[in-house]
């Protein structure tokens, strides 16, 4: 150990004074085991403490002033909205096969209000796997040749120009609507949007233009919104000679509307724009009602764990709770709500807080156990959806263009008969009106409040400064352990040599061997590099596999696994055989490999925490214990003590859990039950990850999988 070396040296000459910072470093490295245990425990504990440490949300931007104006939405507007709902749900309107009638109805209603109306035709664009486009901005869509007339969607867009505004900014209101098989909820959401829209055409306080996008959701809500945004932000001016939508007879039908309207100038078939988007709201109404209260659910997670500004959520929450009396709901991991261990943990925290409070009355950090459990469930889902990197609704498309957006889903309490319908129209409309009014008040774009946060309830959040502590504690031990392993591996061989000859002789004669020994880590680095290279190859493989036509997910997955193993073996044989212990002198080889692995994991986790914190956090939870504990099984078996036996068990368990497919099935089983687990599911999941350009995919392929392979190779190390 370093210490012993120092002591042996100190006998001969007066020891030079060591700087405190160096001394501290040496101390930490020498106690790396203790430090890593303490850090990991503290890291996990801190994660569980986060619901306790969550702060209440507050509105940070003064200009928002939610709820300071009394709502102007009256029953007149509600009945207007009701009229539209009736017209849309009228069976006559559904006669057309393509649902064009309902688009016409909506457009006509918008025109009657004096809004500018246009239709946006789009071809649903399937998400494609672009291996190199993970972090680039969304590309303007490629033109596909095989468009047919039947496969296009129509977005209806209405724009109100602010009467005295300068038209530099706009607020977007999105209502997904499937004209072919619309539920009553969708019609109702249109009704709410229409009632707000009809109010906004009359008000004078508008400073920003209002865009109402009725997104045709027959090819998915997200695809419609994304197509419209693509046209808005990165339009193609050139259209190649592909069959255009204008050629299709149905679309031409659509534009007969022009003739109907007397103020024809308001309608055009060209794409209409307003200014820079300030914020976007996606409004949905859920059909089935299982709630006991009128509830509004907020979905905020966009791609790669990006969140909208917290102020936007706060405004909605404030207005819904304090003005409209709606219950606000954020997504939770439901299985966690019933877990007894979480409850008992909550109770422990509660009682601890009680004790602390009795000690010093100003320490008030406790929360009730039930609240704790709910907070943890919300936090877990918040972490989960952010880590997944897949947007939770159409609002995700906006975030790609740096527009703050959330999805609001209203779940009414009772069946939507006449009275309740009016009530939900009024309250929902007033909520939307209030939010739009607040955003309209904004002079600057959203910047005051947090962008990096985790929600523990609609009105509580954990900011980046707090949740980073848990992560930092988790990974803090990694560099120390790596250093200590490196020192250990070097010094052990050093000492064995030092015993045989005098220290002076070492310095004189064996300088060459020392130089070789100090570069020995390169050998292990080569191994680690090869494995990471393999990881990169593995993450590129699905792109080629997906080109194979008519492949079921299970077979694809199998091909993937086979190819991966094959490539690993090929790489292994081509680039030396690092797994074999070639030289007998390098009995500590595994320690060096572990050291390099750990440092790479540290770097990988650190980078990932910048890109997507939640992924890094979950990854750290899995990988840090595995990396720290990894030790050749042979050694543990040989030792035969209880401690080594425990370690052996832990290693085997962690080795299974940390394998990405295994982790996936475990999680899926926990959430949905183990009954319907299918091998192909993992393939589907991976497919969805790359389709959404999730960085989690890269993380799994390039960090977690190689790390797992390296750890397993350490476990089965022959020395």
């Amino acid at each position: 150990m370093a210490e012993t070396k120092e002591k042996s040296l100190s006998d001969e000459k007066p020891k030079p004074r060591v700087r405190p910072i160096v001394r501290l470093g040496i101390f930490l490295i020498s106690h790396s085991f203790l430090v890593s245990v303490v850090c990991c425990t503290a890291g996990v504990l801190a994660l569980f403490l986060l619901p306790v440490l969550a702060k209440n949300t507050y509105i940070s931007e003064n200009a928002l002033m939610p709820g300071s104006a009394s709502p102007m939405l009256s029953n007149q507007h509600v009945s207007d909205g009701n009229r539209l709902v009736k017209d849309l749900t009228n069976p006559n309107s559904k006669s057309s096969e393509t649902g064009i009638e309902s688009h016409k109805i909506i457009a006509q209603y918008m025109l009657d209000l004096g809004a500018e109306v246009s239709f946006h035709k789009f071809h649903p664009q399937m998400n494609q796997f672009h291996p190199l486009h993970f972090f680039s901005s969304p590309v303007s869509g490629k033109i596909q040749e095989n468009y047919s007339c039947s496969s296009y969607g129509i977005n209806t867009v209405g724009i109100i120009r602010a009467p005295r505004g300068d038209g530099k900014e706009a607020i977007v209101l999105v209502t997904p609507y499937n004209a072919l098989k619309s539920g009553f909820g969708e019609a109702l959401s249109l009704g709410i949007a229409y009632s707000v829209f009809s109010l906004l055409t009359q008000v004078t306080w508008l400073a920003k233009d209002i865009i109402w996008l009725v997104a045709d959701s027959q090819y998915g809500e997200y695809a419609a919104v994304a197509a419209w945004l693509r046209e808005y932000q990165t339009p193609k001016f050139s259209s190649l000679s592909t069959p255009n939508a204008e050629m299709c007879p149905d679309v031409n039908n659509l534009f007969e509307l022009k003739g109907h309207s007397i103020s024809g100038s308001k309608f055009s078939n060209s794409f209409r724009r307003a200014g820079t988007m300030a914020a976007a709201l996606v409004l949905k109404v859920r059909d089935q009602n299982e709630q006991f209260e009128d509830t509004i659910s907020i979905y905020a997670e966009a791609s790669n764990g990006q969140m909208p500004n917290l102020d936007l959520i706060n405004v909605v929450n404030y207005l819904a709770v304090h003005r409209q009396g709606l219950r606000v709901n954020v997504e939770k991991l439901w299985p966690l709500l019933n877990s007894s261990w979480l409850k008992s943990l909550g109770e422990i925290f509660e009682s601890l807080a009680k004790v602390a409070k009795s000690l010093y009355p100003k320490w008030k950090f406790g929360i009730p156990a039930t609240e704790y459990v709910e907070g943890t469930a919300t936090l877990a889902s918040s972490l989960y959806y952010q880590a997944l990197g897949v947007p939770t609704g159409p609002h995700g498309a906006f975030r790609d263009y740096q527009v703050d957006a959330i999805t609001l889903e209203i779940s009414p309490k009772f069946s939507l008969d006449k009275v309740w319908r009016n009530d939900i129209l009024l309250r929902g409309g007033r909520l939307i009106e209030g939010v739009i009014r607040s955003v309209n008040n904004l002079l600057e774009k959203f910047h005051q409040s947090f962008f990096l946060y985790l929600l523990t309830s609609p009105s509580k959040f954990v900011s980046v400064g707090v949740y980073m502590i848990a992560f930092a504690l988790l990974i803090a031990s990694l560099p120390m352990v790596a250093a200590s392993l490196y020192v250990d591996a070097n010094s052990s061989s050093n000492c064995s040599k030092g015993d045989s000859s005098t220290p002076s002789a070492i310095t004189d004669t064996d300088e060459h061997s020392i130089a070789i020994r100090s570069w020995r880590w390169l050998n292990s680095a080569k191994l680690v590099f090869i494995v990471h290279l393999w990881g990169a190859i593995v993450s590129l493989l699905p792109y080629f596999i997906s080109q194979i036509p008519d492949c079921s997910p299970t077979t694809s997955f199998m091909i993937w696994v086979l190819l991966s193993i094959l490539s690993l073996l090929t790489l292994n044989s081509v680039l030396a055989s690092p797994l074999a212990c070639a030289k007998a002198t390098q009995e500590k080889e595994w320690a060096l490999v572990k050291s390099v692995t750990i440092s790479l994991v540290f770097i990988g986790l650190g980078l990932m925490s910048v890109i997507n914190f939640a992924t890094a956090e979950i990854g750290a939870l899995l990988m840090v214990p595995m990396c720290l504990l990894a030790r050749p099984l042979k050694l543990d078996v040989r030792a035969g003590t209880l401690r080594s036996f425990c370690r052996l068990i832990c290693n085997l368990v962690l080795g299974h859990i940390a394998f990405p497919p295994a982790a996936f099935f475990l999680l899926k089983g926990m959430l949905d039950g183990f009954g319907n687990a299918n091998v192909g599911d993992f393939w589907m999941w991976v497919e969805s990850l790359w389709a959404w350009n999730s960085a989690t995919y890269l993380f799994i392929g390039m960090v977690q999988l190689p790390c797992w392979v390296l750890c397993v190779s350490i476990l089965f190390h022959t020395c």
Partner: protein
Amino acid sequence: MFRVPFIQAETSKIIAMAKRADHSVSFDKNYHVTWGNSHVTSVNQGTEVHLRMDKAAGAGFESNVGYASGYFQIKIKLPNKDFSGVVVAFYLTSDPDGKEGNHDELDFEFLGSNGPPFTLQTNVFSNDKGGREQRFHHWFDPTSDFHTYGIVWNQHQLVFYVDKTPIRVFKNNTKIGVRSIWNGETWASGGRKIDWSQAPFVASFVGFGVTGCQFQNSASKDQCYISSPKLWWNGDKYLRLDPTQRTHQFLQCWIAFGSVNEEGQQQEEFSEELLVKPLPDHKLLAHFHFQSSAPPSTSNGCHHHLFPKAISQLVQKFRVKEMELSFTQGRWNYESWGGFDPISSSNAKAPGVELWAVFDVPQHHIDASWKNLTHSLRSFLFPPASGNVRYGTLPCEAVCTENLTPWLKLLPCRDKAGIALLLDRPSLYGGFYHSQRLHLTSTESSSEGIDSGIILEQTLTVVLQPNSERAIEVHASEKHVQPSWSLSSIFGKQVSGRCVLAKSSSVYLLLDRGLVAELKFPNKENGKSAANGLTSENFWSNPSFELSVNPDRIFLEESSSHSKSLSILYMFQVEKYSESEPFDIGLMWKVPVAWLCQQTPLHASRFLMGSGNERGAIAISLKSTQFTEGFMSANSKDGSCELRVDVFQVVPWYVKVYFHSLRVFVDQQPRAVSDFIEKIHVSPSKDKMSPGVMEVVLKLPCRVNTAALTIEFDKGFLRIDEYPPDANQGFDIPSAIISFPNFHASMVFLEDDSLNRSPLLSKFQEKCPVMSYTEVLLVPLTTPDFSMPYNVITITCTVFALYFGSLLNVLQRRVAEEERFLKAKAAKKTGRLPLLLSKLSAKLRGRRREPLHSPPSSSSFINSKLVLKVILVAGLAVGWQYFFS
């Protein structure tokens, strides 16, 4: 009528002296043009001058200096055609500006006629009293050759000569000068109509030598009346009338050429007008037009009756030839409010402030002038464009009443009388569009920059919603009936008479081409007969609408090539109304009418492309509007028809535009830039200095459906002090100006004499190219976290301290020295404080103190027993607290 001659009855030393009128003297030596510069041509190296007169204007010139006595003569040849009604004059006046009340004047007036006999009228004014006309018939043909006309003036007598023949003599009865000699009556032209088909009328002048005693100041005026060889006209010979003597010249000369109609040109004038126009989308356009004009003045423009002094000072100080300043709020809706009429193409502006000016100073002074001008306008410094034109915009300026008040101060009646009474702030600012504009033109700025006439045009364009009540819209049947309105219902006020200072005060109601076509006037089918039937009653008692006040006149537009139907203008004279009977015009619609305004040939819109904080692109897309198609096809008969579009775009420097990335798409096909861009002028931006300017001349085929220009940019990084206080809003890119030079937005109304008097309508007749402004864009720029500086300072300081500390350490350290020092230290006793500490710790450990050899190794920091003890004590304390509190 012309200005009256000038008899400067003062003395001075002698400057100019010549024995005879010399043909070789050039015009510029003694004279300069006072008005109608474009109608003066000098030939023969400036020794001969032609004054031209046509329908638009005449011309005049005057001597450079004033004289107190002398012999003044000039050779004149009159126009050799029928110039009845036109008067050519050569006269001396004491007050060329016509400001002083008691001026003196000596006139030669050549009354126009359609052939012999030609009449020469002489007149003498003293103390503003004229009426001493004497008419002579020429004994020769004045139109065929030059003849000399001269006046000798000394303190004894005044003699009018024609070709050395004295024709009229006055005794100078006052002691000095001619101030108070005569009385008289007004002069008239005979009231004959001018036959403009003969225009232009050219009179020629030669012999510009002046023989006179120049007037300097009144103290030395007697000098001009003594008899000396230099002042030979004061000699004895000229005290008596001697026809055989060669006679000599006289005072300051003023030569004018004009028609009787030109009288107004020379006085300060103010006129107020209001144009009201119903718009297709149930709104109403009100366009106020106030025009003040100041004539050229020799007296430094110090005295103005009506004209705002501030403006004339501005013009003189900064040598502004033309300037326009506009404040705008809201957007002009080109689609429903039209873009092809004079109002929309010259008064519809982009939101914010726009200022441009043309200077009349040397090139290197322009920037300084511009800077001073913008400073004195308390505006923002805008960067230069090209030539002597400067252009600047401020798109983020909010416009409010504070901008209106100084604007109103320039009006002679403020908003206390006349049409300006309607300017009710709440209703103005409650409108959808509001643009106030100040346009000034200094008509003629000579090299001295003093004598210039200024025309100040103040316009206010507002778009209002006649009635905000929703009541009408509720009934589906009446949904499309245009709202009825009256002035009092829109503005909440009525006009009670005109501003007494205004020369003319009128209100117009314009029904534009589309509306007129829709209304189908009964006699519209008759084509030309519609013009004849103008005065018939049925033009305002129409089945589809009703006017509450009968118009005083109705004008029909002259047929234009752009449109088949013609617009109609109703004129109302405000003069007729008074406090007791205020003017309040109203329009009642009876049937639903819907029409479209004439739009610009291409509808332009501009937007930002891309996302993120780093890069982006500006796209200008042009779409053909339905209207032009017919016109285009009509014009495209002659082979290749091209539509010229000029794009002018200013981009602030923090948006770094890559001009090479300009791409052109025509009809959805990417095309080579050189195919369609005929000319491009780019001046790249300079960081923190000037913005980038791009001027593009596009030549598009007439049949073009869509065209688009894209240009990429990088968002620059700004220094922290360059951010505005609300940096997170983003930055504005001022709107691009799209103009169509092939198209002219003029409205020519059928000829009528009184039309010439209306500045608003003459403004409409001007041929200005159709222009439209695009939207203002908001570029979100990366903004720093403004609390960052503190963090940055802290981090930077730490890094610096660590870096320099360790560097110094390394540089200073001498290993051998250190080792020696350590040894010496080990040999020596330890210091007092460590000794004390070690004693204390020994006590704590309950052990005897050991002498310290070396600092304790790091592991000895934590002593398990010590830790245990501390924990025990803390636990005890906590327990105590828990159980006994």
